[in-house]
């Protein structure tokens, strides 16, 4: 594995047990996250992007399980780490920022307690005083006055809380921060400030960030690369410039066309036809084919490979590849 890859996900599948049967919420997905980049992961609600983010920390529980896949983080396959040792990695090496800052902080813990608890959980030898000092230092750098540390979550605004969430992710100098829809619940101005902050931090700490979002605009603003998920599958990955300039997968194309653009008055917004498929009974072949304007005969029969279509731009679409005889036989 190349040294510039921090996290390499190979053939990851995440299953959910439901009443209707087993659902592959993430289905055989591979993705590399490079050191120091901000990688945007986009897709519609329910496409499996959040499940994917959680799976990177093996945070699945209850009905969810990972039947196969490799999670190479910094040269180590996390799937081979015993579950009881995972908490040591969570928070320390990989941090996570959740979607709703209003509900992601413990209402009966002060901000200081959140921070010191996180620090001391991973570094038990740190004294209370040292932990306090680190917490103060950390939040000051995130633009929160340290006096506010004694406050409780409900006393803070949404943006402030999301900064706290970031500070929690950074408290142990995590190499990778997974931010799951961090700005969804923030208003536009706060969102912009927060994204600026995220970028600053990324530069300052040389952070690697996986930014999970459904907002293409956010991706355009802060991300280096973008990955697009559809119905539990990765459909396209590439640099933001490349993908935005020339989206290869019809789904990506549709996604980009459906984004409102203030500068260009292109009349009515594009609306993608159809509904996202049920993951309990996903369509055969390419999962996008029922909605795809360019669907071909083969699309409904065989699943395309996820491979390079232009340099480092990968896509999973029959438009760019040839059917492989063996598959034809199997599915035909």
């Amino acid at each position, binding site marked *: 594995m190349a040294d510039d890859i921090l996290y390499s996900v190979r053939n990851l599948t995440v299953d959910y047990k439901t009443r209707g049967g087993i659902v592959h919420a993430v289905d055989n997905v591979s993705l590399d996250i490079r050191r120091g980049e901000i990688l945007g992961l986009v897709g519609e609600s329910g496409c499996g992007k959040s499940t994917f983010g959680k799976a990177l920390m093996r945070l699945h529980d209850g009905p969810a399980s990972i039947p196969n896949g490799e999670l190479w983080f910094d040269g180590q396959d996390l799937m081979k780490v015993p579950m009881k040792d995972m*908490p040591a990695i969570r*928070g320390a090496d990989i941090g996570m920022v959740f979607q709703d800052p209003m509900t992601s*902080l*413990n209402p009966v813990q002060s901000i200081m307690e959140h921070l010191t608890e*996180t620090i001391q959980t991973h570094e038990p030898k740190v004294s209370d005083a040292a932990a306090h000092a680190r917490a103060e230092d950390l939040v000051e750098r995130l633009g929160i006055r340290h006096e506010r540390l004694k406050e*409780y979550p409900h006393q803070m605004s949404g943006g402030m809380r999301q900064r706290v969430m970031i500070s929690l992710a950074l408290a142990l100098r995590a190499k990778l921060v997974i931010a799951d829809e961090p700005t969804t619940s923030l208003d536009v101005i706060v969102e912009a400030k927060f994204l600026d902050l995220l970028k600053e931090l990324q530069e300052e700490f040389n952070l690697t960030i996986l930014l999970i979002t459904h907002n293409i605009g956010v991706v355009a603003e802060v991300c280096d690369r973008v990955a697009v998920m559809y119905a539990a599958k990765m459909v396209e990955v590439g640099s933001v410039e490349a993908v935005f300039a020339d989206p290869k997968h019809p789904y990506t194309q549709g996604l980009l066309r459906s984004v409102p653009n203030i500068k260009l008055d292109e009349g009515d917004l594009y609306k993608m036809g159809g509904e996202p498929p049920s993951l309990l009974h996903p369509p055969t072949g390419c999962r996008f084919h029922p909605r795809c304007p360019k669907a071909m005969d083969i699309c409904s029969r065989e699943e395309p490979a996820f491979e390079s279509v232009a340099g480092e731009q990968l896509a999973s679409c029959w438009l760019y590849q040839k059917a492989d005889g063996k598959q034809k036989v199997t599915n035909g």
Partner: protein
Amino acid sequence: MPPITLLALIIGIPSILLLAYVFIRGSTGLRRYILTRIVLTLPMVFILGTLVFFILRVLPGDPVSSALGPKGTPEMIASVRTQLGLNDPLIVQYGRFLWQMVTLKFGNSLVGGHRPIIAEMSERFPATLELIIPASVLALIIGIFGGTLAASKRKKVTDYIFRIYAVVIYSLPIFWLGLILQLFFGVKLGWLPISGRIDPIIGTTLVTHTNIYFIDSLITGNWPAFLSVLQHLVLPTITLGLIQSGLFVRITRANVIETMQMDYIAAARARGIREKVLIYGHALKNAMIPVITLIGLQVAILLAGAVLTESVFSWPGMGSYLVERISARDYNAVQSVITVFAMLVALISLAVDVIYSLVDPRVRY
């Protein structure tokens, strides 16, 4: 110290200390809230007392004919009633009762030894405290830890065991459980005493100060008495505690499970916080908020449970006192006990609110 004010003070001083603490440390809003609550409690106690006063007198039967039984001739009954002031016009009796409430001088009981009610209560009340405090502690320990354990092992054997336990124990009649424990540990095995608060012989050596025998034996260094008190506490405490624990197991379990699904628990887990800390630190603390409310509400039920437990174990507490005096139509005693209970429940619910505000930083008054 004159005994009349003692009981009021037993209840009053701790609340004053609690309030003082909160006043010094608490916010302006909390202070105003407490003041409002106290001011509102007074008419509540007054209304309740008045209701009890009139209900007692509407009920058929009276203390004198009840005590004298068939041997009381109408003349005897009439003269004793006059002597006790029961032949005074109702309005005069009511005025006297109000004055007793205001001055906290509860007068004498109308049956038995006709002793001052304050003296009777100062014997009975500590006995009930000695029973319900350890029983509540036991109920809470079992409830909170059992409920949390069940929640953490959700849908596993431990969980089912605790869920069955909660349902079964909640539906057991107290007297039945008490009887089974008495038969097994008292009569069959002979390990534990089945009645009373202390061994009769050792009891003669106990010098009382508080009438809470646990404390009295401790402060006088009377170790045989202390041991005996502990032995006598075991079965009643288990009986009352177990019965109370069922509800706490269920509520705690439900709340912990609900809390464990909260985003902040997922977030904390993503920060590497261990499961044990998540459950016993984060989830339990949040889940305790509704449980604390329940503790406040349980006080009345606890007192009701104490009535039966006291009867089964011949434990001379407030519960059995109230029952005895209601059936003897001891107006003065019943009025006084209800008034004291009302103040007690009001005080505890105020304390619960205050504690609530300390546990949950979101609560502001």
